[in-house]
C-alpha cells in the first residue's frame, strides 16, 4: 500500500480528533501548563524493586553460573573507566603519530605461518624519507632485518631472514603427515628493483562513512604495473630446532636428504620481471573486477662480483614461472561477493645438477594455499591451486568468508590431475571498517587437520 492514502486518511483522523485535553483539566494558560514542572513529582511510597522476588529466584542459578562473566565485566568496567579517564586512547594515538612523525615504524610482523606472535620496529628518518630500516621478530624465534633505499620507480634493498623451524614432510603430494620434520634456514638477499608506474595511485577516501554498505566507491581506474629486479641471494640450511615426538629434525627423519641439504651454502644471482593488470574495485572488500599477474624469475649461477660469500656453490640453475588470476562479482548493496582465484607455478631446471634446496620447492598448506593443511605440508617443483570464496555481511562491521580450495604439488605440471587434487575448506570472520577489511579469524580444515587462523591487516 502506498503511504500517501494512509497519510491522508490518518491526517483527517488526527485533525478531527485534536485538540485532545486528555487529562480533562481546564487549561486557561496553555504556556503555563506546558512548562516543565517544579512541583514535587509523584513518587511511590518506597523504591520499586527492579525485579520481583520470583524473578530473582529464577535468575539465581544463572547469576551464580555467570559469576566468572560478571567478574570479567567488572574488571572490564574498571579497565575501561581507567582508559577513558586517563585519555589512554588519545595518548596512544598521539604517541603513535609522533613516532611516525619522527620516522619510527612499529607494527605487527609478517613472518608467515607458525611463527608465533611477532612485531616490527624500524626507522624511516625525516631527513631521509627514501631510507627505511626495520627488524621483525616473533615468539617462535623467527626474525628478519631489512634496509632499503627507494625513490619513485626504483629501489635497492637488503634483507636477511632466519627461520628456525620450517616444516618438511617429504617431496610430492604423496608425502605423509607422520613424516613431519623441520629445518632451519638463513637467507640473505640484495635486490635492485625498477617499476612502472613510478608511484601507486592513492586509493584513500576523505569521505567519512558510518557504514561499510554506505561506501560510494564502485569503480577504481585500472592499475597496470610492471617491475623487474635483479640481485644475489644466499641460502644456508641447518637442522630444525623443533624437537617433539611428532616433529623431528630433518637429519633424523630424512637423513639421506639432509646430508646434501644441511650445511650447504647455495648462492644464486636472481633476476626476474612481473606484469600485473588489476581491474578490481569496491569497498569494504573488493567486490568486482579481476586481476592477473604473470612473473618469471631466473635463479642463475652466482656472479663473482655480487656473491655474498662465494660464486662457486653447488647451485641448481632454474626458472620459476608464476601465473595468477582472480575475479569477483557481487550482488546487493552490502556486497555478497563470489571470488575465484587460480595459481600455477611452473619451475623448470629443478633436476639440473647441484643441490636444489628445500625452501626453493613450491609449497601448499597454511597461508600459501590449501589452508586446512599445515604450512609447508605439500612441497614439490610445481603447483596448481584454485580457490572459490563467498564473502557476505554478518553485521555492520562484520563479514564472513566461506571458501574452498583445491590444489596439488607435482614434479611437472603435466602430471597434475583433477582427480588428484587435495581440498581444503574454511570459514573466517572478518572485521571491517567502512573502507576495508581490517582483520580476520577463522577455521580451516582438510582431510588431515583443523587449523585456526588469524590475520591483522593484509586481508582482502
Amino acid at each position, binding site marked *: 500500500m502506498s503511504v500517501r492514502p494512509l497519510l491522508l486518511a490518518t491526517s483527517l483522523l488526527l485533525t478531527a480528533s485534536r485538540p485532545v*485535553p486528555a487529562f480533562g483539566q481546564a487549561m486557561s494558560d496553555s504556556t503555563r501548563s506546558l512548562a516543565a514542572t517544579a512541583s514535587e513529582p509523584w513518587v511511590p511510597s518506597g523504591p520499586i524493586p527492579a525485579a520481583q522476588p520470583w524473578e530473582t529466584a529464577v535468575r539465581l542459578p544463572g547469576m551464580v553460573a555467570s559469576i566468572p562473566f560478571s567478574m570479567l565485566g567488572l574488571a572490564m568496567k574498571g579497565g575501561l573507566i581507567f582508559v577513558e579517564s586517563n585519555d589512554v586512547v588519545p595518548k596512544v594515538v598521539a604517541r603513535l603519530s609522533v613516532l611516525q612523525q619522527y620516522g619510527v615504524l612499529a607494527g605487527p610482523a609478517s613472518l608467515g605461518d607458525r611463527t608465533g606472535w611477532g612485531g616490527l620496529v624500524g626507522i624511516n628518518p625525516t631527513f631521509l624519507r627514501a631510507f627505511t630500516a626495520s627488524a621483525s621478530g616473533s615468539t617462535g624465534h623467527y626474525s628478519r632485518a631489512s634496509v632499503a633505499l627507494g625513490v619513485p620507480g626504483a629501489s635497492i634493498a637488503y634483507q636477511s631472514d632466519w627461520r628456525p623451524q620450517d616444516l618438511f614432510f617429504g617431496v610430492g603430494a604423496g608425502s605423509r603427515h607422520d613424516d613431519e620434520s623441520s629445518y632451519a634456514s638463513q637467507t640473505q638477499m640484495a635486490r635492485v628493483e625498477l617499476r612502472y608506474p613510478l608511484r601507486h595511485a592513492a586509493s584513500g577516501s576523505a569521505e567519512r562513512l*558510518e557504514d561499510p554498505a554506505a561506501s560510494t566507491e564502485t569503480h577504481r581506474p585500472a592499475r597496470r604495473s610492471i617491475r623487474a629486479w635483479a640481485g644475489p641471494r644466499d641460502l644456508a640450511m641447518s637442522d630444525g630446532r623443533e624437537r617433539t615426538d611428532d616433529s623431528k629434525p630433518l637429519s633424523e627423519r630424512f637423513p639421506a636428504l639432509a646430508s646434501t641439504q644441511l650445511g650447504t651454502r647455495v648462492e644464486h644471482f636472481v633476476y626476474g620481471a612481473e606484469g600485473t593488470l588489476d581491474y578490481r574495485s569496491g569497498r569494504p572488500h573488493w567486490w568486482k573486477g579481476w586481476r592477473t599477474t604473470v612473473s618469471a624469475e631466473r635463479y642463475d649461477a652466482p656472479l663473482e662480483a655480487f656473491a655474498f660469500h662465494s660464486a662457486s656453490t653447488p647451485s641448481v640453475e632454474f626458472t620459476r614461472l608464476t601465473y595468477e588470476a582472480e575475479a569477483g562479482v557481487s550482488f546487493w*548493496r552490502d556486497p555478497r561477493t563470489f571470488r575465484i582465484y587460480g595459481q600455477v607455478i611452473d619451475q623448470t631446471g629443478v633436476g639440473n645438477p647441484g643441490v636444489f634446496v628445500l625452501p626453493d620447492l613450491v609449497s601448499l598448506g597454511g597461508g600459501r594455499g590449501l589452508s586446512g593443511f599445515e604450512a609447508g605440508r605439500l612441497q614439490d617443483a610445481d603447483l596448481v591451486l584454485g580457490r572459490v570464496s563467498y564473502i557476505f555481511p554478518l553485521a555492520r562491521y562484520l563479514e564472513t568468508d566461506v571458501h574452498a580450495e583445491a590444489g596439488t604439488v607435482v614434479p611437472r605440471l603435466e602430471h597434475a590431475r583433477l582427480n588428484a587434487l587435495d581440498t581444503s575448506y574454511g570459514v573466517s570472520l572478518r572485521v571491517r571498517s567502512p573502507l576495508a577489511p581490517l582483520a580476520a579469524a577463522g577455521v580451516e580444515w582438510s582431510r588431515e587437520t583443523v587449523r585456526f587462523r588469524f590475520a591483522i591487516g593484509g586481508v582482502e
Partner: protein
Amino acid sequence: MSRRALALAAAVFALAAVPAVGRPATPGPAPKPRNISYYYDGFKQTVRPLSRAFDAANGVRKLTGSPREAANVDEQDQVRLPSTWWTPRAGFQPVTDRDMLSGTGGPDVPAPAPWTIVRAKSQGVSPGFQIVDANGVRWAIKFDPPQHPELTTAADVITSKLYWAAGYNVPHNVIVSFRREDLKLKEGLKYRDPLKGQLPITEAYIDDLLGRVARREDGSWRAVASRFLKGQPLGEILYEGRRLDDPEDLVPHQLRRELRGLWAVNAWLHHDDCSARNTLDMWVTENGRSFVRHHFIDFSGTLGAASVTQHSQRSGHEYLVDFGVAIKNLLTLGLIRPKWERAVDPKIPSAGFIDAETFDPVGWRPFLPNAAFDARTPRDIRWGVRIVSGFDESLIRAAVREGRLSDPRAEEYLVKILLERREKLVGAWIAAEKQAERAAERTDR
C-alpha cells in the same frame, strides 16, 4: 566589554532568571554527580541482548506472555504526574507552533558579538567551543562536518523543538551565524593535549578548529548554539536502575513509562544515538524547591544526521553489533536481503538519510541497545505513539523551519518524511483505537 561588566550582566541575568515569586530557599544536598565511562556503557549495551537471551526470568515472562509493565502509570495507563522527566504536551494537550518555539527559549539567541570563547576543543570528531555572550549567557557552539553543511546543526535544532513538544526537557538550541572577528578569547584559556598536558588556547588554535568544520561561501560560519541548562550538572541519565541518592528517583528507569515510550518518539525522529551520553541530569532550584530535572541533549544524531556524517541506510534496522541479525545472516549465508538495502538516498546533503519507505514502525532499533526500550511493551509504545500522533503538519513544519535549511528541498523532504513516518507509527499502533474513538463519538452524537 570589561570582565566586571560581564560579571554584572551575568549576575543580573541570573537574578532575572529566578521567578519573582518563590525565591529559592536553601537548596538541599544535591546528589553526587555521576561520571560514566562511555566505552563501558557502549560495551555493556552491546552485549546486553546476549545476557537478556540467557535471562531465565525474561524467558518465563515471554513464554507466559506477561511482560512487566511500566511502574509509574495510573489506572488509565497514563504517566503519574507531576513528573520531572516529562510534561504532557503533544498528543495530550494542544501545542501550538508558538508554544513549541517559545517552550525552549523562544527567539532567544546569543547576544550580538563579541562572543568570548571560554572553552574549546579542536581535536576529536566534532570540534566546538563554549562562549559567553555579551549578556553573560553561556552557550555551546557546535558545527557541521565539512562534507555535510547544515546537516547536523539543523537536526540538532529541529529535534530539540520536537522533543520539547513531545514533553521532554531539552536545552534551547538555535542556529547562529558569526564571523571570525566576532570571537574573542578569554585570557588564560587552556586545553589538554594528550601528550603535553595543559597548553594555552591561542588564536591559531581557534583558526585550526574553524578550519575543520563547514564554512559558508561568504566566509561566515553557521553553527548551532545550545544554551547551557540551568542548575548544576549531575551527569548522565542511565536507562536502567536508579540514582540512589535522589530521594525522588524511586522507580527503576527501565520501568518508567516516559523512557520506555520514548522509543516511539525516537523511532519517529530516527534518534538512533540515544545512549546515556546524550542525556544530562541537572540539580535545579525553582519555586523554593531543589530537585533533579532530567534532560535530553545533543540531537546531532537524529533525522538524517549521524553526528559527523549522514545516517546509513542500515541505521534504525540493526544495532551496532546485532547478534540476532548476525546469526540470521550466518545461517542463511546473507541471502535474505534486508529491507534497508532497498532504501533510496534522496541525495540532499543537508537532509542526510532518513526515509519512510523502509522505516519499520514495529522493529526500529537504535545504534546501541537501550535497557528501557528493550523493556517496552505494546502499552508503552501506544503511549509514545499517542505523543507522535499529536504532531500535525503545522507543528512539524514549524520545527523544521527552525533548522534554517537553505535548500528548500531539504525542508520539504524532512516534513514529508516525518509525516509519513508518523503515519506508519500511528497505523501500526493506534489507528484502530483512533477509529474506534471516532466511531464512539459519532454514536454519542
